[in-house]
């Protein structure tokens, strides 16, 4: 054998578990960093409301009014948009839902609350689209 060569031990040793534990800990830490709800700062979410294909308002979620907002949709329908705030762990601290609508289908009400970038509520009869967009880049996938 040359001077540099050395035989590794081929059977698992107790310290190997330590390496595995470090890798798992790293995975858990990065997972927590990225999949826990953000507490302030971070990416800026913007609520975009579109009626009949035309953008009506674009408001950062931090500047939304505390109470419900009325949206006049097409066809004479009116939607009530209600923000809600939560201090509970593992739930988004801010979310918005259509709490009331006089449209026939009620799909927008049944969609429930949205809180993350990319989510949206659509009301077809009133032609209203309520969506959350992020100012941060929203890359879905990178193929090498």
């Amino acid at each position, binding site marked *: *054998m*040359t*001077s*540099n*060569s*050395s*035989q*590794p*031990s*081929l*059977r*698992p*040793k*107790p*310290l*190997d578990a*330590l*390496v*595995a534990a*470090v*890798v*798992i800990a*790293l*995975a*858990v830490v*990065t*997972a927590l*960093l*990225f*999949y826990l709800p953000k507490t302030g700062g971070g990416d800026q979410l913007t609520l975009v409301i579109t009626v009949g294909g035309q953008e009506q308002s674009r408001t950062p979620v931090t500047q939304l009014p505390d109470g419900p907002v009325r949206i006049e949709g097409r066809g004479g329908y009116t939607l009530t948009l209600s923000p809600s705030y939560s201090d509970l762990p593992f739930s988004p601290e801010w979310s918005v839902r259509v709490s009331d609508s006089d449209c026939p289908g009620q799909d927008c009400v049944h969609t429930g609350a949205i809180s993350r970038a990319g989510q949206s509520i659509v009301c077809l009869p009133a032609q209203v689209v309520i969506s959350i967009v992020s100012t*941060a*880049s*929203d*890359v879905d*996938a*990178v*193929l*090498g």
Partner: protein
Amino acid sequence: MKLNPRSIALCAVLTALALGLSTLENLFPVTLIVPLPGVKLGLANIVTVFALYELGAVPALTILAARCLLGGVFAGNLSALLFSLLGGFTAMLVMIVLKHCRGLSVYGVSIGGAAAHNIGQMAAAVITLGNTMVLGYLPFLLAVSLVTGTLTGFVAGLLFRAMRNIHLSH
């Protein structure tokens, strides 16, 4: 390691083997079983582990660099070159350090290398994309690297056992 014809030839053979293994694993994508894009078995890492123990750090690094460059040329995809270079060299660095830990077997070194490879590739992704959102993918890759690292460690172990009777690098 002395730079004699035998060791040069050995480095060349190992480089060819690493290239062959990476081409082979591209033919049988693991993504069919584990539906995560970018997940690979890392068969070429077996060669890296073997070279690191059998020949030392410098020849192993040379083999790694040759493998990445030639692999980039073969694949015709230069954007992938940064990924494989950063991943490969991070893995190599970690394995050189871990190799000196007496309490570790080939499994620990291999798992550490596999995890470091993913971290290096993530760094390349962050550099090319210019944002850190992709890091959210790291936990999944790290979890998979535990399995692939154990697997390549096992195969490298088989290789070492077989080589004990051959004395290739005299």
